[in-house]
């Protein structure tokens, strides 16, 4: 691949794998090959100019680094080009529908990016004296107020860094509350449809996990749940709307029963976007719920993060919420850190600090800009359009794909399909996904949730137009048709992407995780 930079003759991958056409560069017009930074750059190239180092004698002596570090540099033009070329090998929401179920890939307004870059937010230090950051504390307090009102919960912890971190926050609070009453129950019940972070989190703070099956309607099996409740059950972690894209109709019953049995209800709020403005989770009786600002409130996913996972709490858990937090005072806003907490009555039971500073300020600004733009009315419309779009997909595809729970009524924000319709083709959900890539779409979520076979979870979100949905539907119906005719073609897909199907097994068998100069080695 080093060669690609200087030009090894490589074949064009035509869509049928034939090699009747050649480019010298390996490029395909605007689809450009880009070597690794380590192949392009060198340790003596540099893309910055810095002030000269003043001539003073340092004090590091023998601690000075002498070994070559091996960090290649590039001039600014080469750097911009390297990353621009790489970026063009990505699919993104800015390019088309990104129907990853459970991930809520919705439009990311550019206003939010602009606001997050205001120096007043982006260029302030977490440890500046509080008098110098009153506007920042006000912003956090304002966002907290929105979150509490939207969820109907009395308290919120802002510091969790993402959804899974929020789960940790919620489960730690439950652990602290149990401890406070000298109760050491350890079992956490998790529906089998739950996201992997739920069981992982429970274990992370010392709980033991037991699965609760789903019923034939794709909801939590109420009887099984009630049967399992008892003195050893600390909490139930339940996702609502659940990961099948369905609302849990027995939520209130479940909460009452769990409380009755002395446990707590943690709600995974990753799907809050389906009900925001239409239902306040607090009205269902839950004790804690994280909110993925990077899903429901549209802060960008950035290819994997960062996110932000504030957690709302019931009155029962509020006293155990983490530090620090923002409090309104007569004179302004106060960031309550350790010391003050110790002094104050109501927060002396906090389970403590779960991150170095105060959370994802950059995401707070974006989320608040999004909320203010939509307003209470717009956010309600968000949920309605998200649900409408998902049901439109479900209704338009359920005759060609298998829709296991379609008979139980409408879905919420995502439509779930299983792979039964593929049985006699010899093809898998994955083959369909790869064929969608050639059609110019990002595939839906595959093989999750685990409750149906070969799951395909489609979440269009409210920011897709009808035309966009119609194109996806048309393409999927066409693919469904063609899968019967020419299965072989699907096994080879994708043909037109920057890369053909990649060998993930080989990658895991002998992991190469760090560039080694093959030439040198």
């Amino acid at each position, binding site marked *: 691949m080093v060669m690609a930079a200087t030009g090894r003759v490589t074949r064009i991958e035509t869509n049928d794998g034939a090699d009747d056409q050649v480019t010298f560069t390996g490029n395909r017009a605007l689809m450009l090959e880009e070597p690794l930074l380590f192949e392009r750059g060198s340790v003596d190239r540099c893309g910055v100019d810095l002030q000269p180092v003043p001539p003073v004698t340092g004090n590091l002596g023998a601690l000075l680094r002498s070994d070559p570090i091996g960090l290649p540099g590039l001039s600014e033009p080469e750097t911009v080009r390297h990353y621009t070329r790489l970026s063009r090998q990505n699919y993104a929401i800015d390019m088309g529908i990104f129907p990853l179920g459970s991930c809520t890939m919705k439009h990311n307004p550019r206003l939010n990016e602009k606001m997050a870059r205001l120096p007043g937010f982006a260029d302030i230090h977490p440890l500046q004296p509080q008098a110098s950051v009153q506007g920042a504390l006000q912003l956090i307090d304002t966002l907290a107020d929105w979150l509490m009102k939207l969820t109907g919960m009395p308290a919120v912890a802002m510091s969790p860094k993402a959804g899974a971190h929020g789960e940790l926050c919620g489960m730690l609070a439950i*652990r602290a509350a149990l401890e406070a009453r000298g109760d050491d129950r350890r079992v956490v019940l998790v529906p089998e449809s739950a996201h992997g972070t739920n069981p992982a989190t429970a274990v992370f703070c010392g709980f033991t996990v037991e699965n609760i099956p789903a019923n034939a309607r794709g909801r939590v099996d109420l009887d099984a749940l009630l049967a399992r409740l008892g003195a050893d059950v600390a909490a139930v972690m339940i996702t609502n709307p659940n990961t099948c894209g369905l609302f849990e109709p027995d939520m209130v019953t479940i909460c009452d029963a769990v409380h009755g049995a002395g446990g707590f209800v943690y709600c995974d709020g990753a799907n809050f976007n389906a009900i925001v403005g239409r239902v306040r989770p607090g009205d269902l009786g839950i004790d804690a719920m994280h909110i993925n600002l990077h899903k429901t409130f549209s802060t960008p996913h950035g290819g994997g993060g960062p996110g932000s996972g504030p957690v709302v709490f019931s009155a029962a858990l509020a006293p155990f919420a983490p530090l620090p937090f923002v409090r309104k005072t007569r004179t302004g806003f106060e960031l309550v850190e350790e010391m003050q907490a110790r002094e104050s009555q109501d927060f002396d039971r906090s389970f403590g600090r779960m991150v170095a500073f105060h959370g994802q300020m950059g995401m707070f600004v974006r989320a608040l800009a999004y909320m203010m733009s939509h307003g209470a009315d717009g956010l309600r419309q968000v949920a309605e359009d998200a649900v409408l779009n998902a049901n439109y997909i479900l209704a338009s595809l359920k005759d060609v794909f298998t829709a296991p729970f379609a008979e139980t009524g409408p879905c919420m924000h995502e439509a779930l399909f299983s792979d039964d319709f593929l049985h006699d083709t010899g093809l898998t959900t994955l083959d369909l996904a790869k064929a969608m890539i050639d059609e110019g779409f990002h595939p839906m979520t595959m093989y999750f949730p685990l409750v149906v076979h070969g799951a395909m979870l489609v979440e269009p979100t409210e920011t897709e137009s009808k035309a966009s949905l119609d194109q996806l539907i048309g393409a999927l119906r066409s693919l469904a048709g063609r899968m019967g005719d020419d299965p072989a073609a699907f096994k080879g897909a994708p043909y037109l992407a920057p890369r053909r199907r990649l060998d993930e097994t080989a990658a895991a068998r002998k992991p190469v995780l760090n560039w080694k100069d093959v030439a040198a080695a």
Partner: protein
Amino acid sequence: MRYLPLTPADRSAMLRVIGASDIDALFADVPEAARLDGPIAGLPMHSPEMLVERELAAMAAKNLTAGTVPFFVGCGAYKHHVPASVDHIIQRGEFLTSYTPYQPEIAQGTLQVLFEFQSQVARLTGMEVANASMYDGSTAMTEAVFMARRVTRRAKAMVSAGVHPHYVAVLKTLTRFTDDVVETALPELTDGAPGDDLVRLIAAVDGDTSCVVVQNPNIFGHVTDLTPLADACHAAGALLIVVVTEVVSLGLVRSPGEMGADIVVGEGQSIGNGLNFGGPYLGLFACREKHVRQMPGRLCGETVDADGKRGFVLTLSTREQHIRREKATSNICTNSGLCALAFSVHMTLLGEKGLRHLAELNHARAVQLAERLGRIPGIELVTKTFFNEFTVRLKSEARPLLRELTKRGVLGGVSLGRLYPGERSLERGLIIAVTECATDADFDALEDAFDEVPGW
């Protein structure tokens, strides 16, 4: 509403296709009692972009920004100049609005960036492998302690007194309900502090110890040779975890890997990322190859496609929650991908040459300021061997003095009183950070402010 493409006509057409009378029909599963019949009270209605912009700008205007004042605040977050091209690149829609690269054929951009990022972090820390990022330095450190436990099957973590107190607090929170044992100590505001601390650790590390956690430069800015400590750890079968909160230091200071670290975690904010009032930041996590299967977080690896072309994929996912669920090495899912991209772009612009230059510049400027302040009566230099941050002992409590400096438009550092609330022995300590952004005029302003504040 400007973000919603559906028109009323679209909505009714779609409802017809669905066969639903109205939108409420789609929410039929919601219990009557919980249904809201209109917008939630007490919140404003939708607002034009211009007005949202004005309201937020007004809040922003109430904050004193680092770039506009003499600024010496550090302790785990640093004000460095980030080239404009970094921000341009991370705003490319293809990076900004993509998801975790689960479909590698159309995510090679993100994947190659992660592979390059991992390779940069491994070199910087002197380790063999690095992951694709954690939330921040503090959570990365906690994950390292848990990883050490999995590797050594031992429960006791010994934490240096020089580790950032917030990091220690996070570790304590996360181990509060597990049977992990965390031994730590308070730092002392005396010269050569880390020495004593290391002596204590070397003496105490034993067969029950899973790891020793040490920060370099430490919270006071002290830089230390960790080799003896590494030897002691390895002799006892424990892992040495080194925390780096100012990665720029690695351009000048010997790498943790070279000193014998087994796991290196760090806060990567300094490179490519702004202060952002504490987040989003970038957790760095690197270790020896032999422990890779115990690592938390995502890993990107090299492979080939059906035509034999090199490509990249997420790999070793069997460590992760979405595959392994309760048996996962960590519960982390969303990480700090875009911050890692910013780090990688800035590091590419710097290259080895630029990084060393930047590090030398930071060190030299800090040395210059330390010398100037050392001459001021009532200020005693505590840290003698440092990178770009040092601690001084004042003749009186530091926290109120800082507030006075702030009133004069100078952000003078971080008081130990804020980091160690209630610790009388530390309340006169002030930690001062100096980067390439601080000018001579800023130095003068700091000195003048010290003069102006009466009798501290």
